[in-house]
């Protein structure tokens, strides 16, 4: 085994394929955080008073909080005064009206990433709201969506055009007091996506956003808000790649989903931010708060995530099952290689009658990677007939990695049924040998076996995304056999 470890270790040296730096002029506020900075951000965006007030309340609350340290992740202290809280690519005063008006440098960036925006948008029928750093620079297919009454725009635009919707729903799932990073986000969020599907409307295309982190030392504080009104349906895709960087970057996004009666939201993420180099230097700190609220009866929210990037991932996409018969789902693949750390999972909070939830988590640890599933299934007294099924599997590739499972199960209703199963095992040597004896290269065999391990999750992704996810997995994994 020792010899194969050495040989395979060589294969781990896969460099980050999406690493490069784009020079775009940015309009940046000074480093550090204060009420003045928040007022400046709000003023730059021309926000209404209610939003500024909300930001300030969040900031004042944040000042009373301490950075959490309960997750099984380790990182040097973050200096919150050494972060630039706002930067926007410079462009024409009124912003681009179409792709033609978009800075060609940006478009070239997307091309390098293999994300030819217009082609992808046209060919796949996907409306893309691309966020480059903090401000949305391109939107497509808006007219078609608008015809159905669907609002899909940048958060800033939603604040301008639909302040009543923003005011009604912002912070209603993740209050500004929720946790340290959510409070920080509430105070300083720069932009993000907003989506509203009116009653009875089925959104005819996958909505998608490519987030990127670019400008040096710019924390990213995205805010996404999706509302599916009664009987509406929407499938939303979030995908990320980031250029290679030297210094750690903080990313503290907040995503809020609201599903009213009979509505359904599917939210899928492929996250491939810069994970740091082989020695564990650099990489993104990804501290995200994602939560959905099944507010109405028979509503459904599904989270699907493929997390291969970031130096540290800390996120628990959750569902509050308020409405009777509501359904929550969480499907996750998290891969950590080199010195990556992931502490991820979900919370399923059963409040309504006959609410159901399914959790399927696949963790893969390679190199010195550390991967933890942390989940909470809570059945309140009111949740008569609630059901949960949880399965967490961990796959270990290498004898220096770590895999942890921390499921919390709290049940207060005797009619509930909760089942949790977890397993941890190493990649089968016999499986590898079998593949190799059939002429398959070791790294392909690993990739194949890992894909098989993750299949149940991938099948929850839209086809095109599944292909991309599988590719990412292969890239992130190359050579990592222990």
């Amino acid at each position, binding site marked *: 085994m020792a010899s194969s470890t050495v040989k395979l270790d060589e294969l781990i040296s896969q460099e980050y394929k999406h690493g490069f730096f784009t020079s775009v002029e940015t309009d940046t506020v000074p480093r550090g955080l204060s009420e003045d900075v928040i007022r400046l951000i709000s003023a730059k965006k021309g926000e209404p008073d209610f939003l500024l007030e909300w930001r300030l309340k969040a900031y004042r609350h944040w000042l009373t909080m301490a950075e959490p340290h*309960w997750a099984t992740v380790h990182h040097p202290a973050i200096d919150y005064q050494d972060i630039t809280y706002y930067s926007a690519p410079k462009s024409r005063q009124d912003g681009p009206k179409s792709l033609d008006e978009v800075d060609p440098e940006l478009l070239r960036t997307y091309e390098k990433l293999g994300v030819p925006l217009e082609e992808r948008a046209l060919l796949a029928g996907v409306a893309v709201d691309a966020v480059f750093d903090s401000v949305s620079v391109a939107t497509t297919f808006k007219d078609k969506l608008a015809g159905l009454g669907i609002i899909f725009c940048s958060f800033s635009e939603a604040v301008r055009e639909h302040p009543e919707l923003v005011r009604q729903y912002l912070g209603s799932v993740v209050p500004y007091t929720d946790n340290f990073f959510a409070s920080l986000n509430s105070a300083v969020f720069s932009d993000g996506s907003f989506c509203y599907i009116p009653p009875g409307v089925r959104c005819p295309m996958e909505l998608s956003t490519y987030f990127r982190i670019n400008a040096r030392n710019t924390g990213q504080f995205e805010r996404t808000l999706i509302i599916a009104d009664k009987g509406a349906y929407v499938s939303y895709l979030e995908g990320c790649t980031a250029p290679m960087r030297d210094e750690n970057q903080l990313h503290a996004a907040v995503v809020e989903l609201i599903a009213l009666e009979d509505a359904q939201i599917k939210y899928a993420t492929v996250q491939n931010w810069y994970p740091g180099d082989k020695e564990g230097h650099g990489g993104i700190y990804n501290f995200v708060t994602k939560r959905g609220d099944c507010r109405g009866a028979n509503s459904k929210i599904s989270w699907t995530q493929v997390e291969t990037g970031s130096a540290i991932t800390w996120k628990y996409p959750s569902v509050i099952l308020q409405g009777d018969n509501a359904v929550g789902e969480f499907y996750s693949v998290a891969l950590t290689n080199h010195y990556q750390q992931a502490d991820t999972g979900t919370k399923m909070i059963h409040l309504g009658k006959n609410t159901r939830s399914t959790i399927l988590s696949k963790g893969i640890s390679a190199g010195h990677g550390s991967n933890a599933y942390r989940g909470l299934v809570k*059945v309140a*007294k009111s949740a008569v007939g609630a059901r949960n099924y949880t399965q967490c599997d*961990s796959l*270990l*590739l*290498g*004898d*220096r*990695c*770590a*895999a*942890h*499972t*921390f*499921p*919390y*199960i*709290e*049940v*207060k*209703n*005797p*009619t*509930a*049924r*909760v*089942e*949790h*199963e*977890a*397993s*941890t*095992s*190493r990649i089968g040597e016999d499986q590898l040998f079998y593949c190799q004896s059939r002429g398959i290269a070791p790294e392909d065999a690993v990739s194949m076996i890992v894909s098989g391990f993750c299949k149940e999750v991938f099948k929850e992704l839209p086809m095109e995304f599944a292909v991309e996810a599988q590719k990412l997995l292969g890239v992130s994994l190359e050579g990592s056999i*222990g």
Partner: protein
Amino acid sequence: MNSAADFYRDEFARIATTLPGSALPWLRHGREAGLACFAETGFPTLRQEDWKYTSVAAIEKSRFLSPPPTANGVAPGQIDAWGLAGTQRLVFVNGRYQPRCSNIGALPAGVTLASLAEVLGRESERLEGVLGPRSDPYPSGFAALNQAFFSDGVYLHLAAGVALETPVHLLFVTTEPGLALHTRNVVRAEAGSRACLIEHHVALGDGAYLSNTATDLVVGRDAEVEHLKLQQESLKAFHVAALDVDQQQGSRFVSRSFALGGGLGRVDIRVGLNAEHASCTLDGLYMTDGRQHIDHHTRIDHAQPYGTSREFYKGVLAGASRAVFNGRVIVHADAQHSDAYQANRNLLLSDNAEIDTKPQLEIYADDVKCRHGATVGQLDPEQVFYLRSRGVDEADARALLTFAFAAEMTGRIDMAPLRARLEKLLLGRLPERVKELV
């Protein structure tokens, strides 16, 4: 009211000279270290992850007093009902050994079985490491208090190769409310030896008291030790128990914990598979009703390769009771070929019962096989229907299936008198009609 730290400091000052071994400097230092540690940490709080579901505020407020060292006048007849046939019996009343009620028969050569208080002076060499000041922190304020205040317990030493065929029955009896009892058991099983212990906690009357017990066990190379525990404290009692096990190469250890009594019960079991090819089995059953709160925390450290652990806990919760299960399995770096399995199954019988379960795997080695599972639910409706289709009425069918659910755990006990005792206790919870069937 003064602080808990002040209270226990005063208590210590009041009774320190009456505690066993007070003339031994190393032990005095050990006790003082425990007291100092408690003064620093105090009782655990809900803010501590390991105590997030179990509040011990009521213990802190109760200000239980250390019992006087004098005899307490319990007659052997009062406790005979708890006796188990075919055992070596050591009885501890209010934390002190009672030779009059005990019954230690002939022992094989190489077995030392005695009250810890009696052997402190003689066995200093072996005991200093366990009872003297320690360098690592105490796992909780209770462990620190136990270190400061322990009044007695069992000392069992098995020389290499010795098999003690007769199980040892340790009967801890509390006779009065208001007492704080700290007992400590030390067991050393040398290479290739074998023994079975039954730790049994009971009370005369239904008063509130604190029973804080700690057992320290070393299972030597290829040795085999079984630790059975039956907790039948009063329903107002606070029962806190710790079991620390150090397993050597090829050793086997079995723990079976049955928690039926106590108002608030907390059991911590920590097993270290500290050498290759060690294996352990941890079984447990908690049955709660009324306002009982029973918390089991177990931790298995696979520290060396080729360790095997099997853990199976079941719970039956009625009334407004609450149970907590936290099973932690840690496979350390280089503990390759570890094999761990853990399951926790719970039946909720009432609208007001609550279960909080958290099976936990932490793995730092790659060549391992680890699985765990936890379920919370009700009786299988198909099983209920099957019994009803054979003419058994619904309430009886449910009672019978509940009994069967719990009896799976008692069925795993080899020691017949204890198994029979437990089955009788479980049957006692069944309606009369169903009892006749079983």
